[in-house]
């Protein structure tokens, strides 16, 4: 933004002051996340920069926390659990959520508002209440502290995201395409896989990503429903923070930040592709 020529001194000061304030806020948003990256290479078991680190002395840096992380059975188990539970929950919620979104976006759908309200309720109800309810219910049907219990719980929490993203994709969907396919003799299944699916795929994939992230990052339900065997990465970090606080969690955090950067990129690319496919001008 260049400054208009008619700006007075006061306008100019405000112009710069505003930008300084904005960048301070951006700094507030990013700095806490980024500061953990150098700290995770600390050679000392502290959560702060040592003198060696500040003088860029190589002695101050080490990979010991990454080694700790990689050699720890409980951390490795938590990674496996996070992926197993996350992927299983994503498959359940993406399948059910996509089907439901297809039904919800049909004009013949009765009681649309009520059903939509029920389907997205897992996103609205505070997690502690969902977790408490599931804790009692899953204990009563003997699936508390099992993988099945955690997967079902996470699938329920992830479906609203799939329903919302896929429904949003279907808003711009041209129904005459499916009619044309039917007219040309395609069966409904064939129409779905050949016409509908490729077009709504970006929405489905980003819904699935949201569902996966929801499970991958979820901790409250895990605290209540999972046993020791099902501990996920956030659950292990929770213990790490509460019990033996060591820079290992910073190493884990750094890896997770890198994963979220990768996911962010994927979602952004999908969004652009989706807009291009639906003929919306990328802004």
């Amino acid at each position, binding site marked *: 933004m260049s400054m208009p020529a008619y700006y007075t001194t006061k*306008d100019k000061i405000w112009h710069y002051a*505003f930008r300084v304030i*904005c960048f301070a*806020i*951006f700094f*507030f*948003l*990013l700095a*806490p*996340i980024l*500061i*953990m990256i150098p*700290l995770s290479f600390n050679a000392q078991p502290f*959560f*702060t*920069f040592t003198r060696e680190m500040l003088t860029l002395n190589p002695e101050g840096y080490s990979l010991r926390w990454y080694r700790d992380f990689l050699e720890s059975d409980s951390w490795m188990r938590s990674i496996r659990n996070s992926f197993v539970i996350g992927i299983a929950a994503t498959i*359940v919620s993406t399948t059910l*959520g996509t089907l*439901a979104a*297809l*039904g*919800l976006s*049909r004009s*013949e*759908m*009765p009681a649309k508002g009520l*059903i*939509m*309200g*029920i*389907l997205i*309720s897992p996103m*609205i*109800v*505070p997690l*502690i*209440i969902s977790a*408490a309810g*599931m804790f*009692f*219910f899953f204990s009563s049907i003997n699936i508390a502290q099992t993988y099945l219990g955690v997967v*079902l719980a996470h699938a*329920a929490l992830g*479906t609203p*995201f799939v329903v919302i993203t896929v429904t949003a994709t279907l808003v711009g969907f041209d129904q005459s395409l499916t009619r044309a396919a039917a007219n040309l003799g395609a069966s409904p299944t064939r129409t779905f896989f050949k016409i509908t699916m490729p077009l709504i795929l970006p929405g489905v994939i980003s819904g699935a990503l949201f569902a996966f992230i929801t499970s991958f*990052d979820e*901790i*409250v339900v895990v605290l*209540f429903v999972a046993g020791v065997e099902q501990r996920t*990465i*956030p659950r292990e*970090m*929770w213990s790490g*923070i509460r019990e033996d606080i060591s820079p290992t*969690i910073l190493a884990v*955090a750094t890896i*997770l930040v890198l994963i*979220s*950067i990768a996911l962010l990129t994927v979602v952004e690319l999908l969004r652009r592709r989706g807009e291009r496919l639906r003929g919306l001008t990328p*802004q």
Partner: protein
Amino acid sequence: MADATMQYSPDTDSRGRLLTSDGTPLRRALERANRRRKLTALALVAPLLFFILTFFAFPIAQMMWRSVDNPQVVNALPRTLEVLRDWDGRDLPPEEAYAALHADMVADLQLDRRERNIGPLGIRLNYELSAARSAISRTTRNVEDFEAPYSEAFMNAHRLWGDVELWRIIKREGRPLTLSYYVAALDREYDEDGNIVKRPDNRQIYVNLFGRTLALSLAITAMTFLLGFPIAYYLSILPMRYANLLMIAVLLPFWTSLLVRTSAWIVLLQQQGVINNALVGIGLINDDGRFSLIYNQTGTIIAMTHILLPFMVLPLYSVMRTIPPSYMRAAKSLGATPSTAFRRVYFPQTLPGIGAGGVLVFIISIGYYITPALVGGQSGRMISNEIARHIQQSLNWGLAAALGSMLLVGVLVLYWLYNRLVGADSLKFG
């Protein structure tokens, strides 16, 4: 085309109604087709609806039921309750009541260990009167040897049996449904006449905690607004290329694990953390003057503002993008000062975004559990932490359910408001 229309003569039945090619009336065929399509739509939604109702809605309804469900006394002491029906609750109950109590307890001991009702009874009464559980368990040990007069035998076994209060509680809670968990959740209790009165000040917990939860959530919402408004505005006036780039600063925290962000703030804010060390390092404070930035309300507010800021920026930004810059220029060319133009022309147009972001942040923060639990210490605790404590530690599930139901109703009302303001469909992520 014209010829085709001319030659087309539709099939009709004797009363002139249109027929399809297989001879059914067109109206009926259409109805059937519409019904089939409606069923198809329902069939597509049915699996998820069933899944959510079974594994999400039902468990929550079941949990809320616990806040009024009260079977323990009714199950354990049917005979005693029968006798107590005519008791006025002023003095100790008559000898028949003790005899009935004896009969109830002896009968219960005949049951299979897993079906006994005395254990749950002790736990239930203990919520209302501490020591009631030990009175029950100590009495149970030798109740089978009791002989008449039973009142004496019971009072010898535990002094609480000579306390009218315990009997009043047994009578009051001898109904299958109770309001006493809600009474406790509102910091009230029953007095001698069965009226609901305020608890003494030193036992007032939950109303204050609800108040604090609301106050903290309001503070967090205000902070996210103060920080979110400038950057949303800045992003909205930048050319798209730069805006998308800077948007990463908002989206990266959004996509980063909650636990990572919370531990980042622990690293920064603790006494030996980065911020305090830096302040000591540059000599701004001395070593004894380190700030307590964490494990208190300050910590909760800072960390949660950071975590929820994207939820404020994203709706604000999407509203601000749609405000045409020409309006501000028009206001200025009509003689408004920049601040007047902003206040009277620009700001009112951002209100839908402020409403959406504000309600969203507020809804999320009043139910927040993890961050207050990790960085809140004692003074930064919120209502969710108390619910979790009652489920996991004090095991008073009825009270937890009552507190949870009140929180849930609050959130649903707010969500309804949010829906009226913006519509749930406008929720977008990323």
